[in-house]
């Protein structure tokens, strides 16, 4: 589609910057085509800020300001309804001696270790399955994506009913003459059950990312490998994996951050107390437990949040570094 000469000139002038534009105040003569020039001002001071302003306001108000406040609060004894006093590193010192913090940290790390490898590998396999162009495949793609769009609360409740000691799964287990499996009463199994839900819910999301990556893998590479006698497994490792490696890194980074910050699944399955005796509490659950409500210890909860942030940032940097190393 071609644009009008006037627009073209205006665009060119804007791109070229002030040097390419007519001098300020210069009379606008007739255009070569006979139509009058539209005066184009390219040197309006502050114009970019007008465009940036709304974004800056939103980022500043909803990301930067709360972040700075959280860091500041972590050095105070602020409570929900009481302004805090500066207490230096007391909250961080208390964290070191708080068993609940260590339980939370252990569970968050365990969650990451348990969930991330599955979320890197399984969606790739799933994506390879549904990448084929066969009739009706769209149905399966949609079906696998459905858990992603389902509310996490609904998903959590459904799984609680399924894994209850009188739920569907245990009914089948007892039907086979076996003992009930304490999915929701044993603290270890409870955490594993929550991981299962996270993996189940996340599969479709990462599958879509892999589908996009797989679409960019040249077909010829597979064909060449096949001609050379490579079987499906060998083609997977020598063609597919290298081609989607950067996507795998991305999925690993995204899923590890999400897994480290897990809240909903564990909260729904283990209850607000964090499972039997609080054994399944994760760090973000601990933030909620300590920092919310009318008597919430906002300062202490902020200190936990800062620790979560630092660990998450560290994880991201590690992944990026590993990726850069591979690239070089």
């Amino acid at each position: 589609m071609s644009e009008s000469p006037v627009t073209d000139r205006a665009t060119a002038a804007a791109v070229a910057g002030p040097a390419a534009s007519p001098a300020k105040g210069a009379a606008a003569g007739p255009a070569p085509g006979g139509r009058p020039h539209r005066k184009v001002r390219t040197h309006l001071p502050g114009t970019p800020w007008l465009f940036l302003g709304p974004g800056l306001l939103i980022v500043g108000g909803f990301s930067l300001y709360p972040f700075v406040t959280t860091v500041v609060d972590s050095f105070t004894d602020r409570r929900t309804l009481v302004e805090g006093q500066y207490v230096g590193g007391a909250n961080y010192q208390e964290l070191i001696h708080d068993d609940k913090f260590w339980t939370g940290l252990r569970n968050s790390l365990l969650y990451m270790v348990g969930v991330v490898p599955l979320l890197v590998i399984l969606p790739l396999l799933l994506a390879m399955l549904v990448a084929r162009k066969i009739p009706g495949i769209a149905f399966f793609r949609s079906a696998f994506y459905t858990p992603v769009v389902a509310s996490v609360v609904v998903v959590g409740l459904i799984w609680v009913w399924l894994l209850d000691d009188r739920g569907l799964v245990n009914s089948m287990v007892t039907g086979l003459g076996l003992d009930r499996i304490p999915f929701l009463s044993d603290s270890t199994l409870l955490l594993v059950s929550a991981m299962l839900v996270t993996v189940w819910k996340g599969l479709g999301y990462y599958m879509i990312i892999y589908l996009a990556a797989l679409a960019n893998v040249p077909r010829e590479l597979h064909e060449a490998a096949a001609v050379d006698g490579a079987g499906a497994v060998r083609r997977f490792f020598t063609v597919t994996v290298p081609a989607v490696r950067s996507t795998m890194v991305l999925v690993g980074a995204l899923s590890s951050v999400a897994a480290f910050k897990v809240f909903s699944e564990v909260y729904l399955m283990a209850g607000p107390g964090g499972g039997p005796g609080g054994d399944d509490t994760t760090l973000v659950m601990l933030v909620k437990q300590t920092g919310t409500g009318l008597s919430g210890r906002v300062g202490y909860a902020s200190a936990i949040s800062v620790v979560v942030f630092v660990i998450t940032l560290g994880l991201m940097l590690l992944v990026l570094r590993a990726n850069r190393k591979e690239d070089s």
Partner: protein
Amino acid sequence: MRMSRRRAVAATAVALSSVLVLTACGSSDEGGSDSAEGKIEGTVDFQTWNLKTGFKGYFEKLIDDFEDKYPGTKVNWIDQPAEGYADKLSSDAAAGNLPDVVNVSPDLVHPLAKAGLAMNLEKAAGKYRGEYLEGAWKSHELPGMDGVYAFPWYLNTGPMFYNKGLFKDAGLDPEKPPKTYDELFDAALEMADESKGKIAMLGGIPAVEDFGRYGVKLMKEDGSGFSFNEPKGVELVTQYKKLFDAGALDSQALTNQAEATGRKFKQQSVAMNPGGALDLEKYKKEAPSLYKNIGITPAVSNTGKDNMYVMGVMVNKQSDVKPAAVAFAHFVTNAENQMGFAKEVTIFPSTKGSLDDPFFTKEDGTDEGRVKVASAKAIKTAVNYTPAVFSEQMKVVLRNEVAKAMQGKKSPKEALDAAVAECDKLLKTA
């Protein structure tokens, strides 16, 4: 287009300071007074706790009546969902947006009163004291603070429901359900033994009100700390541990919430569950086979007194329309309007004489009527066992420590000592 660095920095500073102004939490002005003198006029914001769905008509009429009685007033009704109510209150309070009149429970009033946000009604509305049951009026007294910080509103208590069929299967007399804790423990162990651990008597571990009903002293006399780690408390946890080990407590008792224990009772895997007339209605609809076998008995108690749940209505000390707010809070909780509410739903008025109304003393032949009359009788002597200072965080602490005792990770004494130490710490920073 270029902008000088200085101008860019200035623009950023302006943008950021605007953000700070826009998003800054309103710091609370603690200069409010406890006086409600003045003309009753203005717009009163009134917040209820999950009541709009069921009782819209009742509240709209109530508000119309108030506005007719006091021309020049307007009531703006806000209803908040049950889930996260305390969080909503805390964000409103922190932002300086607390409504003028707020539906609260005693544990919610405590931090608000300490932060200078709840009006002392003993001072502002002490003349109305005689209208309410003495125990109900005192339910919003707070340890370490003089005065009363909310009008008592509706009260509730509930019987225990039990499954006569499961009692019979376990060889227990379905017409003689346990009344004391000793009877309960014996029956529970017998049921677990008979059913080989498949049927549990109870669905959850003891909460603070169970400690109260067992006869445990929950707080020190001067209110400076908790005392539920006393020998009687340890005895209660020890008994529950025996039940847990024998399978007399549901296998998921350590994580079950009230909703889950209700579900287990409906599934007939738990034989006893506390509840009220509304639950009875639910059982009738959702679990007819359970309903055929349902038994109703007073809650198990060693003190002879049932637990009373109290709702209150507080007035924001920083309200701009205090006279109207106090008048409205009193209007909502007066005898006539509480009685009207009781006829809409099974709650019990906190006003003197209301419980003597035939509505609460004469059975109508239905099960719901039976529950209502039994509960009304129980509420006259009932006690709110949950200390007003016992926050949500403390409930989680107690629950988790008791669970550790059930798992055998700590002895009952160690668990309760730890719970008391943690709750005392939270009390000091509340």
